[in-house]
């Protein structure tokens, strides 16, 4: 089943009467259960792509169908709702709230979704256990390692059971061991049916995914399945 589709999508930035076409006529389709990586050099338009896919930004023109709805035309409030219910974000710099514990950070999306406190806690604990942090519920971000912080962020992204997980350079701030750990979690989630779109500029990391879309100057110049996929559990296919 098709989960998202982009049709003739354009994003233009106007700065000082100088217009920059960040994304130019993008057509892309992602099926349910895919694990796609978006690659490209800086300035290739990959971050803009992820912002639009993650409903943080709206395209200048074109259509973006997510779960059957054209969200390209959505207003701020509707986009917030989509971000809350259908999208889970994982960022390079984790973006956890420093004053809140792991549990509270993971609860936050459910707070905005209006989930009652008791259910919220149960689900947050379950999500943290799933990423292996069942014993770190009360810890604050500064009491955790980088890999652990990113796992809290993944738990937060998953807790509202989104249709798709968006990851922006999720391993950019991590050492190689943590990188493998995070990829193992992603692969596990994907095996369980979670659709993941990940932006990265590291070919090694992209090798963990199933499909790579290569961006250059606002265009997709290559879009093909991954051969010799790396498995975080060890070995490759």
């Amino acid at each position: 089943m098709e989960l998202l589709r982009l049709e003739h999508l354009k994003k233009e930035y106007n700065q000082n009467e100088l217009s920059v076409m960040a994304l130019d006529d993008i057509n892309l389709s992602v099926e349910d259960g895919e694990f796609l990586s978006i690659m490209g050099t800086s300035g290739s338009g990959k971050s803009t792509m992820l912002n639009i896919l993650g409903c943080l930004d709206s395209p200048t023109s074109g259509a973006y169908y997510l779960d059957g709805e054209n969200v390209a035309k959505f207003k701020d409030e509707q986009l917030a709702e989509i971000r809350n219910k259908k999208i889970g974000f994982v960022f390079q710099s984790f973006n956890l709230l420093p004053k809140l514990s792991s549990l509270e950070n993971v609860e936050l999306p459910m707070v905005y979704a209006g989930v009652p406190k008791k259910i919220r806690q149960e689900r947050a604990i379950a999500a943290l256990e799933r990423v292996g942090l069942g014993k770190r519920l009360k810890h604050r971000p500064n009491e955790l390692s980088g890999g652990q912080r990113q796992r809290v962020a993944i738990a937060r992204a998953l807790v509202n059971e989104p249709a798709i997980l968006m990851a922006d350079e999720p391993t950019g701030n991590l050492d190689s061991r943590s990188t493998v750990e995070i990829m193992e979690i992603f692969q596990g989630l994907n095996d369980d049916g979670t659709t993941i779109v990940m932006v990265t500029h590291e070919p090694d990391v992209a090798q963990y995914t199933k499909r790579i879309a290569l961006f250059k100057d606002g265009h997709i110049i290559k879009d093909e399945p991954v051969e010799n996929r790396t498995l975080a559990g060890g070995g490759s296919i």
Partner: protein
Amino acid sequence: MNFGECAKSAFRNVFSNKMRTFLTMLGIIIGISSVIAIVSIGNGSQAAIEKEFESFGTGSLTVSLSGYNDIETRDLLTMEDYDMLKEIEGVSYVNPTYSGQSTYIKLLDPQETKSASVSGVTADAKYIDNPTMLYGRYISQNDVDMRTNVAVINDTTALKVFGRCDEAVIGEKIKLKTWKGTGKYTVIGIMENTNASAETQYSDEFPETVILPISTAMRLYNNKNLNGFSILIEDLDQTDSMKERIVAALEEFHGNEDKYYIQDSSEMVDSINSILSYVTLFISFVAGISLLVGGIGVMNIMMVTVTERTREIGIRKSIGAKNKDIKIQFMTEAVILTGMGGLAGLVIGVAFAMVIGHFAGITPVLSVGAVAMAVGISTGIGIIFGVTPANKAAKLDPIEALRFE
């Protein structure tokens, strides 16, 4: 996001920087506490003044010689005026105002004397001054007619002279000494201390008060001239016309003009109250400016907070917070800041009023209206001065906000 979550998170943020929170609240605290202190003291003095006049006799008219014009012998008020005034239609009771000068009373220790406030009355005084009798009886018409040597004293006098205040004091004698001579009077009644005499207003202690039949007092002081009269009229709605009628009668009786001054107690209460309310209004205005400055301080700090927490706002938005959620969050923080400032101001204001009241001899009165006003104004300031920063936070672009370092 429900209100409980919002308030909890707001409290957490407000308390995470205690010093800043305290300094921000200070303007509100100062403003609210001064308003509360002033209003409570104002209400307290108003209540005290009204009570004073109540014990003095509400609705009574006070006649006195006008001090602005030269007084001749024929203008002086005597008991003849009293007899004349009593006969005026519409007058229910008349009591002459007659107080003795430099009078001393012998205390328990025979070597000691103390200055006492002595006044002469007619039997009507009990309807005008409303004394509360603790023991015995008040001055009767017979005492006035027969010029008996009897006295009604207040409980302070009983304690000072006899060392006790009970039934047994009735029938005992007090000794008064003036520059004209001395006199011994049998105590026929003890009345409760009242605030009625003006000189007690600013002291904690009630003076020794002795009340004699007017005829007896005149003999003691060898002086037949009265200070004036207190008059109770039948119909309070006729106050103005009665004032004219009484003054006209006195002027006709003495054959003079513009020598008498007549005032009703409600007029005095009104004029004092209006002065008080102007003072209260003026100081409240100054306090209001302090609240305005406090509010601007809150707005300033909220602006800084929004900038500092740009990234947090971006994170919250990225996980689904709506503009409205962000706006409510910052509004709540502003209202908590000012609301807590308001409550602290309320407590400090009451304490301040009690301290001032203690030294000024006024019991501050804290009205429900003043409390509601303190809470209302402080919350209102939070809302008014919180809107702009909260809107700024709500309108931040999530992508820009997430990039903020």
